Structures are given as C-alpha cells and as structure tokens.
C-alpha cells in the first residue's frame, strides 16, 4: 500500500486524486471535510486548526498501518490543513484506491472516523456573534 500523509496550510482534493490514481485500481473513495458556515445553529466566521504536528503525523501513520493490515487497499492519501480556515475551505481529505469498491468505502470511513478520534489536531471556532 502506498501512503501519502501531509499536514500543511492548504490542501487540495487534486493532489490526493493524483496520488491515488493507478490503472491497477478500479474504485476510488474520497472523503473531504469542508468548513461549514454554521454549527449548532450559529454562524461561523472561521476556524483555526492547531496541530501537534510530529505526533499527528505519527498517529496518521498508525491509522495507515491499520488500514494496510485490514484491507487490500493499494493507495491511501491523508491530508489535513492547519491555520485559519473559512467556510468552503477544505480541512481534510482522505482518498483510498482499491480494486474493489466495498473495501474502499470501509477503509475511507474507518480512516476519517479514527483520524477524528486519535490525531492531535484541534479546531477553534470563531462565531459571528463574537462569543466563544
């Protein structure tokens, strides 16, 4: 399994697609998480993503190791953005390529679910009403 893991200011879906593209694979599943303009009924101005980068990279590699052990996945890309993000911006991209689509869905959902549980990244929300 080829793995691309990256944490940086700006990420794009295209770089994940480019990485997982392979004529050996027939099915690709991509998850993108974008900044919403509201959360729990409150307008969102921006989010700030803080990251304990060295450990985050390490935890992302652990997720990749689990994916590799569980499923026959050929390519896995995990990208996370940091810093100030505004509604519509991309915060995270997970992209998986496999010969069979069922396991690609399973592996992609496992990856984003686990990332949200274990990878040390924090978002701080800035609301339109100015309160925390």
């Amino acid at each position, binding site marked *: 399994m080829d793995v691309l893991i990256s944490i940086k200011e700006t990420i794009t879906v295209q770089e994940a697609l480019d990485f997982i593209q392979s004529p050996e694979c027939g099915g690709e599943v991509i998850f993108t998480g974008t900044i919403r303009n509201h959360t729990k009924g409150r307008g969102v101005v921006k989010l700030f993503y803080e990251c304990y980068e060295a450990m985050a990279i390490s935890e992302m590699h652990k997720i990749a190791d689990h994916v590799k052990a569980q499923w026959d996945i050929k390519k896995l890309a995990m990208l996370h953005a940091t810093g100030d993000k505004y509604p519509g911006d991309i915060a995270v991209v997970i992209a998986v390529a496999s010969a069979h689509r069922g396991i690609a869905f399973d592996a992609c959902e496992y990856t984003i679910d686990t990332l949200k549980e274990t990878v040390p*990244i924090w978002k701080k929300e800035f609301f339109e009403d100015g309160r925390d």
Partner: protein
Amino acid sequence: MGILLFGVAKDIAGTPKMDLPEHITDVGALKQWLYNHYPALMQLSSMMIAVNRSYATDGQAITAADEIAVIPPVSGG
C-alpha cells in the same frame, strides 16, 4: 524537553509549554498535579498525556528528558 500544552489545555494553563514539575515520575502523578494546579482541566471530557508522541497510560514513567504533551479532546477533520 518539558511539557507541551495544546488546544483548550493551553488556554486553561495560560502557556504552551512548561517544565516537568519536580518529584513527578509517572503520567498518573502528572495528571493529578495538573488537576490540582488547573482545576478547570477536570471539566474536559478527556485529557490524555502523550509521551514521546504516543498516548501514554497512567503508569508510564516520565523524566525531564521526555517530550510530554497534554492532549485535550481532539477535534480535527
């Protein structure tokens, strides 16, 4: 190496970094020390300690040479 604090733990402690307090030799004791000095940390739904970039259990030994981090509930993605 000392202790790194992130997210709301950093806000509560008012600093992104502190030295390992003397006489603290394991993760459980460090958590207790943090709760004693910053009681607001007890309101977090979870507070993990990472040692050298891996999540650690309470029994894990720590020294001033370790990279220790206070990890409030993560919210990436």
